């Protein structure tokens, strides 16, 4: 019996002690007519060997392409040590550190994680993780609504460079509490349109959401946006890419007083693309807002002997204590992903992370130059960008991407797939530090070939 250790003797002994004659008797409180028949539609079990063969074949089906898609998930080099250490049984098969004395490993690690995120974002407090960037933004919106004492508004303003899938996610979640989002239109340079923004002057919003870099890869003038929002009595929710934080002004230093809540997708910090997860959402805030923070927080304290130790703290915000009055319903979070990210940040350090960020930027710039030197391909991102840009291809972006896929190149995402009403010729492209200059050339020549074979339309 896979994973069940019982021998016939064991079972007999156990039944005797319990005082029943068969395992089935243990279910005698369940009404007979409810009892399940066999699970016919579930296949027969496989041995580990047969399972590995099946899964290897399936994994192989999806392998081997050169990927230039970003759009919220980024391919970075993950040091081998990250997952070797993170998947040690003691990290991987423990659970939430309820018994602090027997969980100091996980607890200290999360404390260190929180500290690193505070360093990266220049904020005071970080929690132990949320599910992902998108749902994390939803939590931030709820948090801002709770936290903004000056405003009774149940509306939040979104600078529309925010990831469209994040917006969808936020909507799915916050609409249930009658909270609504309004968007500021984007300028032609894929950055917030100052004019459009002015139109919201004087309106009552609990918060302004600013993405840096934004979904299109563009770098926003976050200082001006932050100061504008604060002047309007809005809190500022910053949505940031953690790799970019090694290069760009951290949200804690935006404008005169910094952002109030910082949220984002932790995936770039050592998590593989892996079909979208597990990743993790990070969230940081100012000291002032700590009691509104969702999720777990680890604190440093001392033990009976005065020795340093770590423990869950401020649990009175959480569902297991406060139940219906909790700051969020989150319980299980993304512990192991955070473990990996903490090791990643430690191995890279600020110096390493800066190099990853600048190499990604350099590769993206180089790719933009190579691709836009092809006839008919144009750079649409005409402001500064980090490691993504938007280009326009002749004809349908979808068709061109399909053509590239036949060369085993995943050339980016068609903007119109994700953004309603977007230019159907626009492609969002990304190149991180893992790409070699040869990879960029391979993309460029495949694109030339695809365009040529399509008769450039």
């Amino acid at each position, binding site marked *: 019996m896979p994973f069940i250790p019982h021998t016939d003797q064991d079972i007999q002994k156990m039944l005797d002690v319990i005082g029943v004659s068969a395992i089935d008797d243990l279910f005698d409180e369940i009404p007979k007519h409810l009892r*399940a028949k066999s699970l016919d539609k579930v296949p027969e079990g496989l041995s580990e060997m047969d399972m590995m063969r099946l899964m290897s074949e399936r994994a192989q089906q999806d392998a081997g392409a050169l990927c230039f898609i970003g759009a919220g998930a980024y391919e970075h080099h993950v040091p081998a040590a990250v997952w070797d250490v993170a998947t040690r049984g003691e990290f991987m098969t423990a659970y939430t550190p309820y018994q602090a004395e027997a969980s100091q490993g996980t607890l200290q690690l999360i404390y260190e994680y929180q500290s690193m995120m505070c360093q990266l974002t220049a904020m005071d407090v970080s929690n132990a993780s949320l599910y992902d960037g998108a749902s994390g933004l939803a939590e931030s919106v709820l948090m801002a609504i709770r936290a903004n004492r000056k405003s009774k508004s149940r509306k939040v303003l979104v600078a529309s460079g925010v990831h469209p899938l994040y917006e969808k996610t936020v909507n799915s979640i916050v609409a249930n509490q009658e909270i609504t989002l309004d968007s500021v239109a984007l300028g032609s340079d894929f950055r917030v349109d100052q004019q459009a923004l002015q139109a919201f002057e004087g309106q009552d919003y609990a918060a302004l959401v600013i993405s840096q870099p934004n979904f299109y890869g563009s770098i926003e003038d976050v200082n001006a946006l932050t100061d504008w929002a604060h002047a309007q009595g809005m809190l500022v929710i910053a949505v940031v890419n953690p790799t970019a934080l090694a290069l760009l002004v951290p949200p804690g230093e935006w404008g005169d007083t910094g952002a109030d809540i910082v949220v984002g997708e932790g995936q770039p910090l050592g998590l593989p693309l892996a079909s979208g997860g597990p990743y993790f959402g990070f969230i940081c805030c100012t000291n002032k807002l700590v009691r509104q923070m969702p999720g777990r927080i680890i604190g440093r304290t001392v033990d009976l002997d005065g020795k340093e130790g770590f423990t869950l703290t401020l649990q009175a915000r959480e569902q297991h204590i406060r139940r219906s009055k909790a700051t969020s319903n989150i319980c299980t979070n993304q512990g192991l992903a955070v473990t990996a990210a903490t090791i990643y940040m430690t191995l890279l350090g600020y110096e390493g992370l800066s190099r990853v960020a600048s190499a990604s930027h350099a590769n993206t710039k180089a790719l933009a130059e190579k691709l836009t030197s092809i006839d008919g391909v144009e750079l649409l991102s005409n402001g500064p960008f980090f490691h993504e840009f938007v280009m326009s291809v002749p004809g349908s972006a979808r068709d061109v991407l399909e053509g590239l896929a036949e060369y085993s190149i995943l050339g980016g995402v068609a903007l119109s797939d994700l953004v309603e009403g977007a230019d159907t010729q626009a492609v969002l492209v990304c190149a991180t530090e893992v790409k070699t200059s040869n990879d960029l050339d391979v993309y460029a020549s495949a694109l030339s070939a695809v365009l040529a074979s399509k008769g450039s339309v």
Partner: protein
Amino acid sequence: MLIFEKGAEGRFATAQAPKVMSSVADLPPEMLRQTRAGLPEVSELQAVRHFTNLSRKNFSIDTQFYPLGSCTMKYNPRGAHKAASLPGFLGRHPLAPESHSQGYLACVYDLQNILKEVTGMAGVSLTPMAGAQGEFAGVAMIKAYHEAREDFARTEIIVPEAAHGTNPATAVMCGYKVVEIPVKADGDVDVDALKSAVGPQTAGIMMTNPSTCGVFERQVEEISKTVHDAGGLLYYDGANLNAILGKVRPGDMGFDVLHMNLHKTFATPHGGGGPGSGPVAVGERLLPYLPTPIVGMQEEQGETRYHWIDDDALPNSIGRLSAFMGNAGIILRAYIYATLLGRDGLHRVGEFSTLNSNYMASLMAKAGFELAYPERRATHEFIITLNKQAKELNVTAMDFAKRLLDYGYHAPTTYFPLLVPECFLIEPTETESIDELEGFVEAMIAIQAEAETSAEMVKGAPYTQPVKRLDDVKAARELDVSFQRNSA
């Protein structure tokens, strides 16, 4: 010592960074960071050594019996981890085109079907990222259902008092008012109280069965009828599905919607607090509201093609709950687990987790410990109360829990459910051998003896862990949640 305290300025693991520092001169200077972020500055060896040693300060399934009730700490097959970590799976971008995703989509599709079968429901969405998000999705679907019928009067969700904290918290996140109903001394819901609580304002009830009291709710059909008759829907919190896997299906009990905790029932690693995965399954009525994305399949000229089903195809969906599709890697592991067990193996889960639990309960009762529900069958978990010990010896459940650590056992869940005083919720799972079960009971007996003769010693436990009992009050009062270079 913290990792921050181990470094030296300028040190880092050189092999891990791109060789050259590329120029960023083209970016607007006022957008560039001026201060170095104070990340650790250590060598690769220092990092590996630090985190390896940290890991050694944890209890875990791989090192200890970990009978944490309501958490199903069963063995996490290493094969599942290995297969889910194949490069083809790790390298797939979440937005990769379907042509480059058939392997992954096939796994998702197959798991959807397996979960339909084991729950007896009509549809499944795997996207929720943990139990609580599954609950959210479920309650949001209930809300969408009522609203689609323009039944706006339903503003309440009923929750038995034994419910997990995520239940009421979720109801509130979905904009509902929470109405708690009592649980009787025998562990079953007080159906009279339920009957007087339901009405046209009732959107639904959230229930766990077996409940967190470790007993099977015998009146489930009556509850179902009561709520349905009042126009409400039934939500099943599947955290305890391990107890009944293959024995009775939530769909057959009358539930309209449920979530499962794949990290519990389907043996994916708990990761020190996550990630998990909390798929939802629904009956016919709620099918249109399932969260997206879902995977569909088409046979075309003998070729099987898997494809995404998104908001376009499911316009009444409650929508997306994450940027992509939840914790894909956990979904893979759960699929692999189901593949390894197969229909017979899944069926055995409920049987043997229940056998183990009842055996432990019997042993503990024989040893003189007080069961919270002595007249009931234990399910996959059971509760003892140490109320007598707390009153007579001043040795609390907390003290027993801490002392267990010294004996090399992780403590059961303590002080939950709240309605049983000084309780231990004990869940052995089916993957533990009889030897471990007996060893734990022996440790409890030994601690009982210690409590009778040297209560103070027990109250000072643990003694063998990296730290002694921690000052939680100081932790909350003098909040230190982030290292500052000068706070060291």
